[in-house]
Structures are given as C-alpha cells and as structure tokens.
C-alpha cells in the first residue's frame, strides 16, 4: 500500500496500461500539458499515441468511435463533463448504440474521461453531475470513483472493457489522497463496495458524495446510529443486488447523489428499492441531492445547494423517525 492522490493514481494507471498495450491511445484538449495533471508525461513517453485535440468536441467524441471500431482502445479526455454535451451526438447516437444496431459486429473499447461536480466556484457550466444522462443511454457504462484506489481499479477495468465507459472523476477531489494497493488491481465494473458498516440505515452515496456520507456515518455512529454505506462505484452497471440486500436487512434507505434531483441516480436507486424491497421498508426512502437549479458561483450559494454532512445526517435521522438536528 502507498498513499497517493487521486490524480496521481489516475496518471500512474494510464502510464502503466499504455506501457503494456500499444493499442491504447489517448487524446483530448490540452492532454499533452495536462490541465488536471492526470495525463501528465504521457506525450513524452508514448509519442503519437497521445495527441492534443483542437477544441472540437463534436468531432472528438466521434473520432473515438472510429478509432475504436478500427481496433484501438481509446481514451478520449473530454476535460470537463459539461463539454460532453457539446460532443453528445457521438456518445448518445453512435458509441452507445453502434454495437447493438449492428447485432454485435463490433466492440467499442472507449473510455470517455471528464471531471464532474461542484464545490469549486466553477459556476453552472463547469459543475454538472451528468452521470444520470449517460445512465439513460443504455449502452454506456458509467464509473465514478470515490477514492484513489477505486480510481486505479475502475480505470484499468474501463480501458480493457470492450464497451464504451464514462470515467467521471469528481472535479474537486483530484488532490484527495488514499491508500492504493501496490499490486495492480482491476475492479469489476458493477461491483459495489461497502464503505462503512451498520445495521440501522442503508446509505448509498455516489462519487464525490461518498466522503461526505462517510463523515456523516462516522458521526452518526458516535450517536449509536449504524449506517451501512454502499458506494456502487459504477451506476451502469448498477449493483442493485448489493443495495437491495442491505435495504432488506436495514429496512431504511438514504441515497446521496450530486446530480439534480429529477431523474438522478438517486431517484433511480430509490425506484429500484421501492419496487423490489417495498415490504422490507420501514420508512420512506430519502434522497439527498441537488435541487433542480444550475449551480451558482458564489461559495455560500453553492455550498447551500450541495449535499453535505449535515443534510445527509438529517436524512438518516429522519428515516429513523428522529427529529432532524440542524448541523454544520
């Protein structure tokens, strides 16, 4: 084990995988200089397999499809997740459908990378959590690592997956450090991890929300409230079984998601549990999400909208029938 920062873990994984497999290619805006640090040094090491793109998301997302169809494992760095909207046609109409439309004629090993989420005064056009939109496409896997260890394991799996995968890294968490195993790890896409154990309430938290949820769980543990915190790690495929098994045991569910509430990952998870674990539920399911607004610039405004420890803990107390206490 070694302590690594999220960005460092991603960077080392890219270096490692590209060194092992010369079919892996990577391109995107400013990837040579690397705005975030995740693609740093790759150009020097891998030459023409790493290329800066013009600011042309529409052609870029489609080039990834063509290069993958022609036999490469493509890492397409879209920088900010919000820019994926500009390049959405090839993601939504091509990458996610081409295999199905052609009855499995091809594999499309593409990793679309980007950062997502708020908390940095980046304002509305650099702060979306857009994973629910990809969840609804059907043909794209969606990975949202919450720790450096998960980032390496999920990225490695994503690069070698024969399908398109969205690899969305929480924008503000690049500097977060955590223990990363020394041996190379592959985390199967679709396997949740239990981050904190408890018997009273099941909590599912996604991406950047895992840390706030964990802090809330630890605090609640001191008050004698046991939270079982599950990080699905990928929302497509979604490890519904792990979530349902926990809900059937605890009878209570809180879902924490940085997406806007309407059609969020949280609302889908809530629906799955309402459908399939209804008779185990002892209380209504609570979602802790972002209201259906654009994220603002000013720190106090932004802070007020993002889920935090206090709101998460309140939701847990609420499903336990305890009065919510204002905190944080």
């Amino acid at each position, binding site marked *: 084990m070694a302590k690594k920062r999220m*960005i*460092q873990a991603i960077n080392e994984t890219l270096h490692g995988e590209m060194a092992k497999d010369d079919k892996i290619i990577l391109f995107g805006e400013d990837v040579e200089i690397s705005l975030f*640090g995740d693609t*740093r040094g790759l150009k020097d090491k891998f030459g023409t397999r790493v290329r800066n793109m013009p600011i042309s998301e529409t052609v870029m997302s489609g080039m990834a499809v063509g290069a993958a169809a022609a036999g490469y494992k493509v890492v397409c760095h879209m920088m900010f997740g919000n820019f994926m909207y500009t390049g959405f046609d090839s993601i939504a109409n091509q990458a996610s459908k081409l295999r199905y439309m052609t009855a499995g004629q091809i594999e499309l090993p593409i990793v679309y990378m980007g950062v997502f989420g708020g908390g940095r005064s980046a304002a509305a056009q650099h702060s979306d959590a857009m994973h629910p939109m990809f969840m609804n496409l059907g043909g794209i896997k969606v990975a949202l690592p919450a720790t450096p260890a998960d980032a390496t394991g999920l990225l490695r799996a994503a690069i070698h997956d024969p399908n398109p995968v969205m690899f969305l890294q929480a*924008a*503000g*968490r*690049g*500097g977060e450090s955590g223990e990363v195993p020394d041996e190379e790890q592959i985390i199967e896409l679709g396997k949740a991890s239990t981050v904190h154990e408890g018997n009273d309430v099941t909590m599912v938290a996604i991406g950047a929300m895992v840390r706030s949820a964990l802090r809330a769980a630890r605090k609640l543990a001191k008050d004698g409230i046991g939270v079982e915190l599950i990080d699905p790690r990928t929302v497509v495929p979604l490890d519904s079984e792990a979530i349902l098994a926990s809900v059937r045991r605890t009878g209570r569910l809180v879902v924490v998601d940085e997406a806007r509430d309407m059609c969020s990952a949280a609302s889908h998870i809530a629906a799955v549990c309402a459908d399939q674990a209804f008779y185990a539920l002892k209380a209504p399911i609570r979602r802790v999400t972002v209201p259906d607004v654009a994220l603002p610039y000013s720190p106090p405004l932004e802070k007020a909208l993002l889920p935090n420890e206090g709101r998460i803990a309140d939701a847990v107390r609420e499903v336990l029938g305890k009065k919510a206490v204002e905190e944080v």
Partner: protein
Amino acid sequence: MKMALKMPRIGMNMEEGTVVAWRLQPGESFKEGDILYEVETEKVTNEYEAPCNGVMLEHLVDEGDDVPVGDNVCRIDKTD
C-alpha cells in the same frame, strides 16, 4: 493590522490543499513575496508567497493537514 491568511485556489479543480511545510515560525518577520509555507495540491507542491510585509503570529494548521480552499491557514501581523 492582525489578520488571517486563507488557503488559495491554486489548481482549477482544487477543493483543498495540504500544508506540507511551514517555512516561517511564529515570531519571525517576513517581506512581501517571502515564502510562508508549501502547499500540495493534486498536481504539484507550490510555495505560498506572503502577500505583504508582516510578522507571523500563529500557525492555524499543522504540517500534513488538508485545508479547504478559503479556510484560514495562519494569523499574521501586517506591517508596512
């Protein structure tokens, strides 16, 4: 004038930085541009330069602490 210095946003996506080393101890005086501490973000270690002349009064965080952007890092006495 006594005041606190805050953790700056160095990286575009930085939410917090780690103060890895203090270069100046309480009681020592500094000039604008002197390095007060080293801060590590997701990419690199940066040096925090004093924005003014002054005297270090107090470290509000320990070396190794993760400090959210905008939180206070130290207290100084600003001089001219």
